[in-house]
């Protein structure tokens, strides 16, 4: 069990606390039953990958000696992507085919026998096959379960009670909330270092990763995006070394040679205007011999095909006029789009009297706005 804990900590830098909590709650056999753990966090903070890996290691590991073995029998832990669960039945079947794999293997008719159409069926199966071991169900994208009915999630939380046929105690214990916070810089760099290609010096790669992080972290916290960008741009960065036009120590020169790619392509790669496939297949091989214009032209060529290039003549006019109209006040529509000129009213417009109270109101409004903004600033500081 400690092996799993250590392995997970190596694979997931910056998630030690969460790993400790999870291994304590899940991996200890006979530990007190927890109703459910609510894992929460921003995108790309390692929730799914950590839990999936944990389940994977749990399945493969032998509890007694901690060695990994190929597990062919029942597994007490199942990972289910809730997106796929378009019917409750699918979720139940996924769970029982993993938890009672051995039984189904021995008697294939069991699947037909266990209909698992409803919660009652599911609870019945669990009750009939109760081996007094804790079963774990990891639900990825759990918010999708709301599509299965407003009471589905709450019913699912009571499934343990239904299975054990114990009387309900009324109120339900509070869930354990496990928060996955955003990574710090050092943690991000450690994660990025895991992608270091074979035979590449780690320190050299870390320098590049660090500079990429410094460039992008203000606008992009998504670690998956950073990993993608690094994997696409690193070969361009290192190419002059293979061509013997620079050495690994000449970092500034390498960055300068790579600069055209950074300037011309990073926004397009980030916005997926250029896909990884196009980048790998169509971008020119980085070289010190390529000038900025050549690189820019090659990148521009990749973004030329963006779809519809032809529209009927009248459709174009319609679109352009709709666009222009959307930027005009409605009262000018007649003036711009009608052939006849608008007949102007001959009535003389009354000029409103200047009122001293107006200035007072204005000044009061300004003061009030300033007060609000100063309060907000104070709130931010606090």
């Amino acid at each position, binding site marked *: 069990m400690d092996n799993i804990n250590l392995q997970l900590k190596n694979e997931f830098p910056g998630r030690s606390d969460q790993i400790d909590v999870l291994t304590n709650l899940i991996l200890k056999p006979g530990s007190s039953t927890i109703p459910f753990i609510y894992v929460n966090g921003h*995108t790309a903070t390692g929730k799914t990958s950590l839990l999936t890996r944990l389940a994977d290691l749990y399945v493969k590991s032998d509890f007694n000696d901690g060695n990994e073995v190929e597990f062919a029998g029942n597994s007490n832990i199942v990972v289910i*992507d809730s*997106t*796929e669960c*378009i*019917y409750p*039945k*699918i979720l139940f*079947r*996924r769970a029982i085919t993993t938890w009672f794999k051995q039984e*189904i*293997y*021995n*008697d*294939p008719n069991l*699947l*037909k026998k266990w209909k698992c159409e409803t919660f009652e069926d599911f609870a019945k199966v669990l009750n009939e096959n109760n081996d007094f071991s804790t079963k774990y169900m990891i639900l990825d*994208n759990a918010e*999708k379960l709301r599509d299965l009915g407003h009471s589905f999630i709450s019913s699912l939380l009571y499934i343990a009670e239904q299975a054990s046929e114990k009387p309900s105690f009324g109120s339900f214990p509070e869930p354990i909330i496990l928060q996955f916070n955003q990574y710090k810089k050092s943690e991000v760099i450690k994660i990025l270092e895991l*992608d270091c*290609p*074979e*035979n*590449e010096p780690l320190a050299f790669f870390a320098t590049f990763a660090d500079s990429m992080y410094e460039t992008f972290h203000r606008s992009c916290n998504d670690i*998956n*995006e950073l*990993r*993608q960008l690094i*994997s*696409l741009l*690193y*070969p*361009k960065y*290192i*190419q002059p070394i*293979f061509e013997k036009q620079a050495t690994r120590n000449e970092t500034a020169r390498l960055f300068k040679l790579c600069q055209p790619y950074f300037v011309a392509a990073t926004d397009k790669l980030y*916005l*997926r*205007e250029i*896909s*990884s*496939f*196009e*980048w*790998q*297949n169509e*971008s020119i*091989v980085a070289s010190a011999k390529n000038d900025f214009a050549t690189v820019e032209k090659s990148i521009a060529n990749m973004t030329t*095909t*963006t*779809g*519809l*290039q*032809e*529209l*009927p*003549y*009248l*459709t174009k006019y319609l679109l352009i006029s709709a666009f222009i109209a959307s930027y005009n006040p409605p009262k000018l529509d007649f003036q711009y789009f009608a052939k006849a000129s608008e007949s102007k009213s001959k009535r003389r417009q009354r000029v409103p009297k200047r009122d001293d109270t107006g200035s007072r109101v204005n000044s009061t409004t300004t003061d009030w706005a300033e007060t609000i903004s100063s309060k907000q600033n104070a709130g931010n500081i606090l």
Partner: protein
Amino acid sequence: MSYTTINQHTNDTQLENANEGFQILFNTERKEKSKETFQSLNNNQEPEELVQFREILFNQNWLKIEKIVDFHIQENHLITAKQVVRFVNSGAKRNSVELKTKLPRTEIKTGVIFTGANSSEHSQGFETLESLLKNSSRSDHFNIVTRLDSQKCSSLKAIISQFITQIINNNQHVDNIYSSNDKNKQINFEWGDEDNSGAYEIETRNILEYDMNTFETYYQSRFKNVEEKPQVITILENFEGFPGAVISDFIMILSRYINSFNIPIVLVLGIATTLSTLHQSLTKSAIQRLSIAKFSLGSEQELVNKLVLDLFVKNNSNLNMGFDSYKYLMKQFTHSNLSIFKFKQNLKYALMDFFYGSPLSILSCCLKGDPNYSEQEMYALPKDLNLTTDHVEMIMMQPSVMRFLDNMYRNNINGLKEAIKTPNFFIHNTLPKIIFCFQFFQKRYSMGVQIVENIQESISKVNSQFTKYPIRALHYNALENDFETSSPWKNIISHLRFMKGEDMKKLLQTTLKIANDCESEYQNYLSTYPEQPDFTGIEYTRTLTGGIEERFEDCISMFSDNFNFKNKNDGTVYTRKQINENPYLLVSTSGEVGHEAALIKSNKLIPAIINGLLAHYSVFPLNEVFYYRKHSFLAQSFNPQPRTSIQTALAKPSFYLGQCDCCSTKVGESTWHSNKNTDPLLATNNDVSIVYRLYLECGENPEEVNEGDPPEKSKTKKQKPKADVIDVNVLNRFILAVNTLYYIGFIKKTNRKTDHVARLAWGYV
């Protein structure tokens, strides 16, 4: 050799002579004959077999045109389909040769095909792609293909069901291939383990209950022992039709199966708009999982250019469009829809009208088509057509035929008399020559367009700022007026004058090659005639080019002679205006002074030749018969005016609803009949129709329309009915009808006081 018919318009004097001759001859003959004229052909007097023959010709010609159009569409689709297949079957490529890097996660290989605005027209392209993907084989590598229909995939449940159903049912080819390949390997393909004990059997469930586990079980068990597993290719033909959230979820699910179970899945998305649609529809996480390659299903404008070249310029169909009809076709295409299908519909309608509306359209079977497209062609000589004297007269009354005869028998008055007076002689001797000449001029026209294309190509190579005119524009200008006066040709000539000697020499060489090719093609074409054409009087048709090769060769030799000539730069400076007017001033100051004479000669030769080749179609003999000109008929048929139709329907409901016997008797008795444009008002008419006609009577003030049935009430305005006469039901019907008219947009509200109007119209109800 005379080119009078080609290069010069027959002058008015000649035409007057011919007219005079025709009038004298025919007037005397007609006096002798009965009052019947050639117009009897248009008065249902045409022989029945010829009418049926026209229908046969229409069907045969349409098949030919359809074949040509479909061929070009198919060819267009095939290019893209092959690119996509290459992409689908290609392996991953590394970013760097030296570096062993890999992407952080496996992405779904995705081909995005930009289909263009008329997405419904591209299902044929996707069918081609599907069949290519199914049949494409790379060693033992095969594909499982699914095509998801957006109309049936509104939810994730539906999309998964469709996906799995198609994988299991529509890919028998994979089963066949693997069964045949694996005879030696002894692999058990039952859905389950090899020993069949404890197998996971897929239940024969309701299709709607399929889930991705079924897919996984099927795939893993079916291809368990196969070394290279088949790719699962999912085609989403009309991407905009799918809900974005559903597709995002589907992509996330597929991505999981790629990463967890190593199932090679490829997506092919057909997008009608732009790439931004993809970004707007899908979630960020779904887009992150796609590795996109872009393809285009081809431009509709280029496709139309090919069709114009094939159908109208090379004239592989027997349908020729006059200027107005062609203009209508192109305007509909470029201005309104860019739709090839609509273009095809217009063509079919024009062809139908051409054959059904013109008795002389039977002559089109005398046009000898291109050998490449003449498999199903029905070719006949004029003598085999059983033409009546009415036909002959009608042909001879065409101005172009008069001009042609006048030119052909310029020095042979007796021949002219015989041709005019003896229908048999005309059919056997003269008419074949006329038809042959028509085709001769068309072939020269086709050669002219090819040469102009070549000139444009040469100019664009040396001048990047020059924009080539598409074939359809060249054809448009050549049909409109004389091509030499058109603005595209003037522009081309102005660029031609700035070409350097060496480039001009290359241009002349390539043009000479085109001329030679066309000439040999023409001679080959002549040899396919069942009977050798009689060239008497039309000797100039023996060769297509008429000796222009020699003139080109002369020019080319001038370039070769003076190539190394010394610069005679005298330091003279010319203004831009002077150079634009006479570019050779610049030449004389440059190193190419030796080419000056050759350049001047080339710049005179090329326009002269093009002017001769691209003659206006109005000088072709029998152009009145072979060119379809009824553009207004097409416009009426394809541009319906709904407002006018509604007005007609309301004013004359009998047009649409017919008239029963009882009503037809009442029509005669009806005292109320406003004008000829409307039906008489009857109590049995629809309420809206009655109110509309009353509205026409009353003008723009619907409040003045009286309630009640007009025939009974007469057409008096502002009549105050007695309060006890008004039936509330009738009042309600009236209000409803007025509101319907208001809704349709025929009447509008006024600012008059309603109570006043109500009192005026209804009294004190």
